[in-house]
């Protein structure tokens, strides 16, 4: 297995920049419930606060998502991870990587940060057990050099949570 460094931080393309600005405006007008965008001057990396939905295992818990946008967003998916400590969830590794198909193979440029957030909250909310993925230790070890989750070959097998 070769490893590569963190995703290249090439500046956003013009289209990506425009699109993100629109998303940000839209977010400010109409933020997804349970999320808060932490204001920064960095359009390319958003930090979003997630509040566990009430009535779920994560009620009253707050986590932070880090969303990094590639140069060619939205043709390429953003990299979305939880900033540790990540929530205990069967599809969330302790290093914050999230096993969610829309972040990788099933990404569509029609999706937005907002729709990603809603998917993640939905994933959290439908969890029935607070536990790490079975292969957490092995995976996290493999990622010690800062690999991006986008380089992982994910198997999306569980459509329930």
């Amino acid at each position, binding site marked *: 297995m070769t490893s590569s460094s963190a995703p290249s931080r090439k500046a956003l393309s013009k289209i990506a920049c*425009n699109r993100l600005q629109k*998303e940000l405006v839209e977010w400010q007008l109409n933020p997804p419930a349970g999320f808060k965008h932490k204001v920064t001057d960095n359009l390319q990396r958003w930090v979003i606060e997630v509040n566990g939905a009430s009535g779920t295992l994560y009620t009253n818990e707050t986590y932070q998502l880090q969303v990094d946008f590639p140069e060619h967003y939205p043709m390429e998916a953003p990299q979305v991870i939880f900033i540790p400590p990540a929530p205990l969830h069967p599809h969330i590794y302790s290093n914050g990587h999230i096993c969610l198909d829309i972040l990788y193979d099933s990404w569509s440029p*029609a999706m937005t940060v907002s729709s990603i957030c809603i998917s993640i909250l939905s994933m959290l909310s439908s969890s029935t057990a607070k536990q790490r993925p079975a292969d957490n230790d092995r995976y996290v070890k493999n990622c010690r050099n800062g690999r991006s989750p986008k380089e992982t070959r994910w198997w999306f097998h569980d459509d329930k949570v």
Partner: protein
Amino acid sequence: MDLVTSCKDKLGCLRVKELKDVLAQLGLAKQGKKQVLVDRILSSISGGQVSNVKLGKDEIAKLVDDIYRKMRTRGSMDLASNAQSSSEKNNRKVVEEPEQSLKLDKLDVKVRCPCGSSLFTESMLQCDDPRCQVWQHINCVIIPEKPMEGAPNPPVPLQFYCEICRLNRADPFWVTVAHPLLPVKSTTMVHATDGTNPVQTVEKVFQLTRADRDLLQKADYDVQAWCILLNDKVSLRLQWPLFTDLQVNDVQVRTTNRPGSQLLGHNGRDDGSAITTCTKEGTNKIFLSGCDARIFCLGVRIGRRRTVQQVLNMIPKESDGECFEDALGRVCRCIGGGNGGETADSDSDLEVVADSVTVNLRCPMSGSRMRIAGRFKPCAHMGCFDLETFVELNQRARKWQCPICLKNYCLENIIIDPYFNRIVTMMRGCGEDVTEIDVKPDGSWRAKNGNLHRDLTQWHFPDGSLSLVGSEFKTKQVIRGGSSEGNCGLKLGIRKNCNGEWEVKAENICSLSSENNLPGQFENQFVGVMPMSTSATGSCRDGEDPSVNQDGTGQFDFSTNNGNELDSFPLNYDISGGVTNGLSSVPLTNAEVIVLSDSEEDTGDLVSPQTVYESGKTDVTGVSFSLPPDGLQLHASFLDDQGLGSGNSVGHGVPLWPLPSGTHEGSGLQLFGTGTVDSSSLVDAPHNSVACSLLMNGFPLAIDTTIGCATQVPDTIYHSDADMNDGLVDNPLAFDRDDPSLQMFLSSRPGAAPVQSNLREQQDVANGLRSEDWISLRLGGGGCENGESAITNASNALTLRPEVELEEADFRLEEDRMESSANNDSLLLKLNDNKSEKEMVKRQSSDSSPSQLRTVRPRLYFSVDSDSD
């Protein structure tokens, strides 16, 4: 038929190319015009002059026959691929019979296979690209996912492209100029023993001429090494093997950015490698190795870059990509089907079928409103993207994937969506904030939030012309108990409009059906329906409609009065188009109907409904009356692009309906007048709207007043109503028509006296319904010809009392006007307060364009039984 004759017929069908093939087989000269070639072949068959023909007559005839059949097969394939219909592709060109294949082999069939052999064998497959049509060995190019000994052959794909055609489609930003190295399959050199992937390699040489090198001096030319996975599920992309090592003239060249061990996801795309700098004139060596069990195919090409603009130019013009009717049909399917595609928020909690759906015009890629609406032609959904953004993004991404449904296509599948492109084109002048439209199942639309662009917030027919449209307001409101939105109510019949009949199903409440047949002119029959919702607000659903706001007047709440069920009254208007014609001879039925309310009193009650609108509208002020729109949908029929307008011709021009509401309190204008109340205010609104509508009609009806005028307006309105009524009245029983086009059931309170009039111009009178709660009117539109509408009492207990005295002629005139008006928003008109009716009538007579309008005093009273629903 003897041999010569049959051959002659076949030869006549062959093109010069095939004729030359035949001559080549015969060893004859191939020069000459077509007729010369044919004659030469025929003479050889008939044993003529040509001495060097060694084949017998029968053999020659068979040869001709083979070529003829082959051409026919290809011809049909061409058609199929042009039509892009995969269903027609079943004529797979797989050659199974050795006998035939041998013959084809003789005929210089183009065989090019990555295996390197050009032998025509028993199982061949032909590329579907009409310009390529190369034959390849099935065994070489169709590779099962999991090779197993003895496994049955994998199925041949419905559509097969050879590697070169796949390459060309993978990235339209490169156009292939030459192939110094035609694609060759990699060969597995070392079978791994440890279960890891075997090593595979390709080592080839290719030549570059001086001319090639000169070409490469230009900036936009490059030599590119490319690699395709033969059985890639994502067919139209490049892919390099795992752990690729590419060397050109012993210089290592980078191929991909992904780690060698990482498979290319189905969302990923590899690119060709530019190797220009490593090449030289003459012989070059290329070496590829990879550690991969799958079979790849390597090639070298000289390519020229295309610019974004050049690629955009390859996309067919709007008119060439898809006909408008197809696009409209798709939209109607998506909207009418309930959850149409990506349409946004449907109120799932309501059983009621929304009469329109919000569609976002933002490009999913850019987040901005589309400037040119592009789509992939095979997609069933109606979602589009901004063409320029999409192409520009794909310059690098090379991912010709629909952003909405994620299906993979290629550039040649892209078209401009004629329906949405028309809309976004019309919205070019709008601010960026206007990104949503409401779309009805018939394809008519209006912009949301376009406060600064009032005209766009009115309902438009699919063809972009303004429609009267009924008001939507009501419906929803009712349902929601007054919530502003009015979606819904119209379940009705919009769909049926096509027939020209409307059926309003307001559940029990009111159903209007009008039938008008529009005259032939319009092909379409327009039915306009206006549903009035009980809800006080007559306002448009969204409340956005300016016209509609519900003020609070609330006078209307029909709902209360009626059982709520009725939420909306549908007013049906026939659309103007229908009107005009209809009256005259056309079968069209326009429904003009209206309904309404409970006016108890004979007198002015009718109007009342109007007020409602008015109030709402007034608020808005300028609002156009669109209100009616909901109710009225003139267009429905409009499916045809023609749009009423055209039909009406004049149509648009008509504009002015006099909606002057000013004076009247209840100014009749509004469709629903609540009687007293604010008519004036309403009126105003109406005015605006009215004007528009008028235009629609194009009839010069003369609206007496301009909207602005309070007094006058009403008249006009009334007129329309009256007309309507008249029509209704007159015919009432008479209607034979099958279609009772209009059936309106109104539930109104007695007191409320909301009347609906049909919009026809004069309708004023029309509905003075007394019925208390609900009135269901059915107008037999059928009588269109007569121009009269028949009203039949709905099964419901409606009793109509047509008191109108309109003359038919008037009617017609009126109708015409009506039409126009109707189109506009005619609906509004109807409401007259009690006062209004009479007055209006009078006014009409006076005001309205005298020539056309006659005095009409139609008073219809409908008694409705509230019970009846």
